């Protein structure tokens, strides 16, 4: 059969091209809206005051290039400390969320016991009810435990906050794991603990990464609990540090922009590393519920 370029075929092809152009136009337009503000802040953080005000949209040039903002931030603010605080809080909380969450999810998905369904619902309640509503009592509790102005207080709260969603996602995923492989390990003589650590954990590693990224964002970015539980200079997180730094330096634009960039960059770097993981994780299981 010879191919004849019928009018219908041609119209179809033109239509498809037009549609594709439309799709790209919309997506591109929104992508620009999404990243333009970030770009403009990062760009201007590398300019001097004149450059920032006279040509805010231009790339830094030799006359306008300057890192004075960063210099101010690094000397005036205690950002290295804030970074290490944020890092400690985030990493330790994530570790606890993933470890404890995976343990609980394993128990809920693997074993038949009386309270199983009830416990599942109890833990998942936390997804619906924001932990912040208990702030009043959390603060009192931390005062009683003498944990105010410690990183531990933040770690405990963030762990409690992150566990429900982690348990939920991990339980859903672990239910899909083959029962055979755990049984096989049992026949091979592994204890229930070793089955969890040596068989189940390696199998859920990809999902753990997704849960990690998801849980990380609200912890790293939180302002509320650092403000209330750990606002001392020694325990400030980056987010709180930036917030207060900007409060003091409102007129020093280079410093403000530099501090913002300093807070943005690590998140972007992490995101660049994990973004594929994140997407595939979301599409794999997070929306099942």
């Amino acid at each position, binding site marked *: 059969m010879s191919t004849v370029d019928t009018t219908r075929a041609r119209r179809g092809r033109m239509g498809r091209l037009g549609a594709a152009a439309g799709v790209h136009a919309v997506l591109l337009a*929104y992508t620009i809206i999404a990243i333009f*503000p970030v770009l403009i802040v990062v760009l201007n953080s590398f300019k001097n005051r004149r450059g920032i005000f006279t040509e805010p949209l231009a790339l830094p040039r030799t006359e306008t290039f300057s890192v004075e903002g960063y210099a101010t931030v690094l000397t005036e603010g205690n950002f290295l400390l804030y970074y290490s605080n944020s890092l400690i809080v985030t990493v330790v909380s994530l570790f606890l969320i993933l470890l404890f969450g995976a343990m*609980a999810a394993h128990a809920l998905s693997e074993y038949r016991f009386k309270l199983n369904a009830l416990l599942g619902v109890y833990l998942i309640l936390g997804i619906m009810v924001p932990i912040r509503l*208990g702030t009043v009592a959390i603060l009192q509790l931390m005062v009683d435990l003498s944990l105010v102005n410690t990183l531990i207080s933040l770690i405990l709260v963030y762990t*409690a906050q992150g*566990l429900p969603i982690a348990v939920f996602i991990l339980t859903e995923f672990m239910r899909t794991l083959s029962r055979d492989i755990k049984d096989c390990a049992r026949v091979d003589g592994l204890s229930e603990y070793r089955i969890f650590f040596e068989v189940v954990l390696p199998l859920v590693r990809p999902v753990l990464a997704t849960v990690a990224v998801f849980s990380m964002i609200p912890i790293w970015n939180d302002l509320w609990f650092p403000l209330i539980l750990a606002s001392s200079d020694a325990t400030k997180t980056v987010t709180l540090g930036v917030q207060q730094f900007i409060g003091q330096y409102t007129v020093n634009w280079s410093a403000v922009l530099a501090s913002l960039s300093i807070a943005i960059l690590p998140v972007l770097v992490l995101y660049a590393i994990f973004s594929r993981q994140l997407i595939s994780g979301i599409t794999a299981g997070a929306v099942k519920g």
Partner: protein
Amino acid sequence: MTEIVEQAIGRSRTARRRRKTGGITHIAVFLAPTVLIYSIFSIYPLIESLRLSLFDGQPDGSAVWIGLGNYATLLFDANWAVRFWNALWNNLILFFIHMIVQNPLGLLLAALLSLAPRFGGTYRTLIFVPTLLSVVIVGFVWELILSPLWGVAEGMMSAVGLGWLYAPWLGLEDSALTAVSLISVWQYVGIPMMLIYAALLSIPDELLDAARVDGLSGFAIFWKIKLPLILPTLGIVAILTYIGNFTSAFDLIYSIQGVLGPPDYSTDIMGTLMFRTFFGQQTQIGDIHMGATVASMMFFIILIGVTIYLLGVQRRLTRYEM
């Protein structure tokens, strides 16, 4: 056969100790850390807040039981009620703007992405960037951009001939809340986009092929096949938006506008009201009992929303096996 079994039973008693099956210790060990941390730092504080809201603080530091007295104050005392209803109303507006801007926008972007255009992954990645940023940062970034001082927004609008439209929106009573809401939309649209995108991807290709063979156009496939199938996800997005209003919205307003919700309380929401009540501010000293009352009211309001969702919306949204 019975003999064999009886002998075997006898022998198994004497046989060297072997590991047993069953037992529940390990189940308890697996669950204990999560249940403890969650109960102590999430559930107990919530219950304690509810309890605190039923007491009134005395000058000597003790507390007396006053039943629902604090709630009566919050709802009917002229000074409190005006703030409470204003904050609740602003929260509802915030929710409304998210529902009509953020979620449709997320749906549109997800639908376009699900067509698997070239560079789809890049678009998706970049559009999600604002979601990752701290609201503190987002707040300041937009404050700077919209600021008449720097003039980035004004300059850009003038460049396309829209300069006359510009106003310092964040500072004007009529537009501040809308401006803040739109900033929040800008930041969070990535979440509905991702959730809806994932749901769209999970629709089996065969189903869409079948629809195509049945003669449905791309647009009809979207309306008649895809949309009904992702309705449950849209329901989840709606309830997440609702809950988010009462929590994460605080950070944004606090960092852009501060704790008073200026100008003139036009951006005051439940979160800022709770913070102010709890910790006090220039003119007013903190009151943990009233703070707990505001928090408890938020809890009930969220509960009402979640209940409506669970009983009304979710039930009607059939989940299809795919």
